């Protein structure tokens, strides 16, 4: 260790405490933050210090690492993926608390850098063995801790107002840090203030620019970048040349009373444009589909229940069976599978809210973990999916398209080609059910393949090439082509994505893997368009009554023209590695659900609290015995340097003082000990002990330690107890 700590950058007094309180305010851990801030800043008022040394700092670092490992394990159990694992950032100030406290209350001003690296420690030991001079750099953790704290404060802060407060607080903290970290005689207040005003303005400009750029990109500013939210937009593999590879990982587990394979929908889209499917809202057609939150009830018996209608909360008491789903949500807002006639979602664990769109896509909100829920069907007309209707803009004006989005084929070439195909197949003269059958017949000769080879050249499109020439493709081709062909035949259709439930495990459990992911289309059959008077409130709050075309009297049916062979091609029997991975994932998810259930949560938290308390008590016990005083940090023999061990003779002093009384100031030790109280037997031992003590003390001779310790012990036996 060198004297580099004299020139170390240290945060000013109260900055760390302020930063921790700032963190507490933005993460809703105000009480924790207050306790932490008091502990951190308490060093300035408390007289307590500890001599930790490299070993002590090492232990603090290990404690922090254990905390990080524990938190990562919990986040991993939540199955939140990489993004979920990054959730530990929010807890950085707590995780590094042992280290910062060790530094704050340690005798040394800083921590040896070797604490953080076993390799560095090994290198230092090696260099010492070789007799090389080793200069261990010292690190003051104040400013890194400050940086971690402000990062952690902002990690989960969103919303315009919160962001504004965060920005203001951040600027104040950073200004304090930069100004007071400079030595007092090097501060130039005027220059600093002027420069910091520029920093504030510039950072505001950068922030605004970043938000604007992000918005621009997410709105499609760069080709194909419009929104990554799959519940609103689905970019297909149509027109791409590649082999489709799907994950074998388990996405969902479903317990269903139905034993035969069936489709489980997660997303529904109504507008096709250039190989992409979009979920467009009929009530304000410029925007994407709008999700509405499902009803919740304040009744205790209805806790964890979400209903499509307030009257359906009792559905779980009347209906006989329900579907049950369990799986990991990696995103804050992600689509979830539901049954076709869903009326109530009950026993939902780890779900804050569930939203559903008019097209029938449901999403779990604030569910960054494994979720579990039951789905109860209603026997009424399915209200999950809205019938096709003419769109109204946000301003309350009727769309120029008289047709609903479910009947539109935006590309002219595709419109003409599918109309020709429809005429060729004679679909226009058939009933809706016959049309469906004819379409099934048409696609019967098509081949399913995962090797996509269709590259379209104008005027043709990939979908046309698939439909008329290649006749081989992936389920997205089949679903899209079927949807457009049926639209050309006058049947409103939607594109649906989800899973095919066909792999059945023990206990009536269906496994929904990535390879079971599927696309098909929904057709609205036997419906008729009629003009309906609709009331609409526009963006300015003005309510308008509009006559528009709404399809009524029909029903949505699933049309899946993909050859049945796709399931054999895509879903081979699981290998032993997959079985093992499945077992592990199930175990993890089941444990997570078990841990977070109401009945278990209380005592699980109690056990964790006891373990934490015991650990803290053990640390406190260890620290209590080694506490020093800031004002007398080196114990009574203060002439010893920091790195010198006191002589074993020091342990004899209480006995000697009890025999001779306190040693008067200014009296040499040897003179003090020339007292008649010592017997003739004691005197030669005392003389020899003193000689060795002086050699140890003044000649730095450490080789006498063992002999000196033995003599001290002999003297202790002959002296009266204290």
């Amino acid at each position, binding site marked *: 260790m*060198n004297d*580099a700590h004299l020139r170390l*950058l240290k945060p000013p007094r109260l900055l760390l405490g302020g930063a921790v309180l700032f963190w507490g305010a933005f993460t809703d851990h105000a009480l924790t933050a207050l306790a932490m801030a008091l502990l951190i800043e308490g060093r300035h008022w408390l007289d307590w210090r500890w001599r930790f040394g490299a070993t002590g700092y090492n232990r603090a670092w290990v404690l922090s690492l254990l905390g990080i490992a524990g938190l990562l394990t919990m986040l991993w159990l939540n199955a939140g993926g990489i993004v979920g694992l*990054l959730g530990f*950032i929010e807890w950085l100030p707590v995780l590094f608390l042992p280290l910062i406290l060790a530094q704050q209350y340690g005798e040394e001003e800083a921590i040896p850098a070797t604490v953080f690296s076993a390799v560095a420690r090994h290198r230092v030991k*090696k*260099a010492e*063995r*070789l*007799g*090389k*001079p080793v200069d261990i750099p010292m690190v003051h953790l104040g*400013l*890194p801790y400050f*940086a971690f704290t*402000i*990062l952690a404060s*902002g*990690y*989960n*802060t*969103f919303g315009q107002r*919160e*962001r504004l407060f*965060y*920005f203001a607080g*951040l*600027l104040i903290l*950073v200004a304090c840090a*930069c100004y007071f*970290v*400079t*030595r007092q*005689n*090097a*501060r*130039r207040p005027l*220059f*600093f203030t002027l*420069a*910091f005003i*520029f*920093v*504030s303005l*510039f*950072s*505001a400009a*950068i*922030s605004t620019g*970043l*938000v604007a750029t*992000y918005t621009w990109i997410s709105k499609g500013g760069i080709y194909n970048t419009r929104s990554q939210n799959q519940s609103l937009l689905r970019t297909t593999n149509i027109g791409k040349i590649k082999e489709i590879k799907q994950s074998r990982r388990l996405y969902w587990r479903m317990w269903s009373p139905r034993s035969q394979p069936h489709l489980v929908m997660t997303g529904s889209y109504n507008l096709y444009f250039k190989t992409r499917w979009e979920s467009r809202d009929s009530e304000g057609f410029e925007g994407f589909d709008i999700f509405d939150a499902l009803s919740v009830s304040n009744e205790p018996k209805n806790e964890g229940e979400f209903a499509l209608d307030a009257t359906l909360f009792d559905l779980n008491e009347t209906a006989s069976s329900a579907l049950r789903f369990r799986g990991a949500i990696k995103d*804050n807002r992600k689509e979830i599978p539901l049954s076709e006639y869903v009326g109530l979602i009950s026993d939902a664990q780890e779900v804050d809210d569930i939203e559903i769109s008019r097209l029938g896509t449901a999403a779990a909100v604030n569910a960054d973990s494994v979720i579990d829920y039951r789905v109860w069907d209603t026997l009424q007309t399915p209200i999950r999916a809205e019938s096709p209707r003419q769109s109204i803009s946000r301003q309350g004006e009727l769309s120029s398209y008289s047709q609903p989005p479910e009947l539109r084929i935006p590309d002219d070439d595709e419109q003409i080609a599918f109309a020709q195909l429809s005429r060729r197949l004679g679909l226009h003269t058939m009933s809706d059910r016959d049309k469906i059958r004819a379409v099934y017949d048409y696609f019967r000769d098509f081949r399913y393949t995962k090797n996509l080879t269709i590259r379209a050249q104008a005027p043709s499109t990939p979908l046309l090439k698939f439909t008329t020439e290649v006749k081989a493709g992936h389920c997205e081709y089949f679903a899209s082509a079927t949807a457009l062909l049926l639209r050309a035949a006058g049947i409103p259709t939607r594109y649906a994505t989800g899973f095919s439930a066909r792999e059945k495990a023990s206990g009536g459990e269906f496994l929904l893997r990535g390879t079971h992911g599927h696309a098909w289309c929904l057709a609205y059959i036997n419906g008729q368009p009629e003009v309906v008077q609709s009331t609409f409130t526009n963006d300015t709050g003005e309510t308008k009554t509009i006559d528009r075309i709404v399809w009524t009297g029909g029903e949505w049916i699933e049309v899946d023209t993909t050859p049945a062979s796709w399931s054999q091609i895509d879903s081979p029997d699981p290998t032993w590695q997959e079985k093992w991975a499945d077992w592990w994932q199930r175990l993890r998810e089941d444990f997570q659900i078990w841990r977070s259930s109401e009945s278990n949560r209380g005592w699980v938290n109690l056990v964790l609290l006891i373990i934490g308390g015991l650990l803290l008590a053990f640390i406190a016990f260890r620290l209590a015995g080694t506490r020093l005083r800031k004002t007398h940090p080196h114990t009574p023999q203060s002439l010893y340097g920091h790195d010198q061990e006191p002589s074993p003779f020091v342990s004899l002093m209480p006995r000697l003082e009890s025999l001779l009384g306190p040693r008067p100031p200014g009296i040499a030790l040897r003179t003090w000990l020339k007292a008649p109280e010592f017997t003739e037997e004691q005197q030669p031992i005392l003389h020899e002990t003193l000689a060795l003590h002086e050699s140890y003390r003044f000649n730095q*001779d450490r*080789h006498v330690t063992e002999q000196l310790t033995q003599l001290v012990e002999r003297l202790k036996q002959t002296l009266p107890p204290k």
Partner: protein
Amino acid sequence: MKNLWLRFLHWSYCRTGRWGWIAARRIRPLGWGVSVLAVVSAVLGTDILKSSVFVVFATSTALWSISFITVFFRSAKIFASRELPQVASVGEEVHFTVTAQNRSKHRLRAALLEEWPPNPNPTLEEFSHSPEPGEEQRNPVDRTFLFYRWMWLQEQKRGFTDFEATEYLDVEGNATAKVQLRFTPTQRGLLRFSEMRVRLPDPFGLFQRCARVQAETDPLIVLPKRYPLGDLLHLGQSRLHLGGDIASNRTGQTGDFLHLRDYRPGDPIRSLDWKSWARTGTPVVREYEDSFFPRFGLILDTTGPVGAIFEEAVSVAASFVSALDTEESLIDLLFIRDQAYRVTAGRGVAKPIRLLEALASVQANGRDSLEDLSALCKRHHKQLEACIAIFPGWNAPRAAFASQLRSQIEELHLIILGDESTLELNPPADALLLNPKNVALSLQQLNRQLARS
């Protein structure tokens, strides 16, 4: 092929080292910290909708940019003169004063003086032929790229630790101020201070300009490190040699009274015995026994590579120079550098500092110079009562040289630096073996053994 590789490594390290030095001087620790924070927050803050970490990125980027711009507005025109001590010692902190004159009409604030070391890059020859101690134990990658050798050689050549003022300079326009600078020499030899700079940080302390300060080149001799020897060696007895009365700087009577004799022209007036002259009427002088001082030899073997063992050998030699009583003896330091050297110090000849200065400039010559050293010893051995020969290692040629010395000098003490891993040959039983990894401890142990015996 190996030479080509070494040449390439030397070339690339020289180039990259320069940029590294420039970056290390211009970017302050806070600057590095803010840069890392900007990168980390850029990675973590990509999801602007869910997190405000991008605000940290914006603020750190703004801070970085404004600091970078404002640092160019700082300038200084300083003339400085150093008030250095005559000598310094390895490992001992040196404080000295610098008088700085602000030649600009503007007040200079928040400026820190510092001294830059001369270019510490080793030459290609040094890089090729000076393996780092323990290099053979490093992993194959380290042994291939030799980066640690480069770092070690740079450390060896840098000569001193961070060399900066203890306080910021605050001087009015066209005024003068004094500041204290401090440093710790890490290498013996002649240090030349020729590159004083003034560091001018930006208002946030992220970056700094390093403006050149007009100052003359000042030399400083750094003496080797010395160890307390205790009662390790008691050397020889006095013999008839120059350095007695003739060389003595002491005036007046020395030695015991022998007899009276008649005055002979040239006798000093102070030798006249006035009473006897008065009694006999002829001038009579008092004759005293001449004083003789013992003359000791200190032979330093300079063969072998540059390295810690050689440096420790020089330190041990310096320790003996400091420990031997030059009031009552003469010391001859014998060594080979570019040629054979015999430097004498002692009563009436020179102060021991001369020997220490000579030792400060000793270099390992890297060639087999034992023959030259043998010839030097042969020329002077008759004048030496006792001799200490210090060897940085032990091998067959050194053993042969030592046995030749034994035949020439009655009392010869061999001091060998090395341990089991470095000694090629078993040292003689009467030699003092010092562990170069901890010479101080070895000397202490030897002293204790001596006390017991």
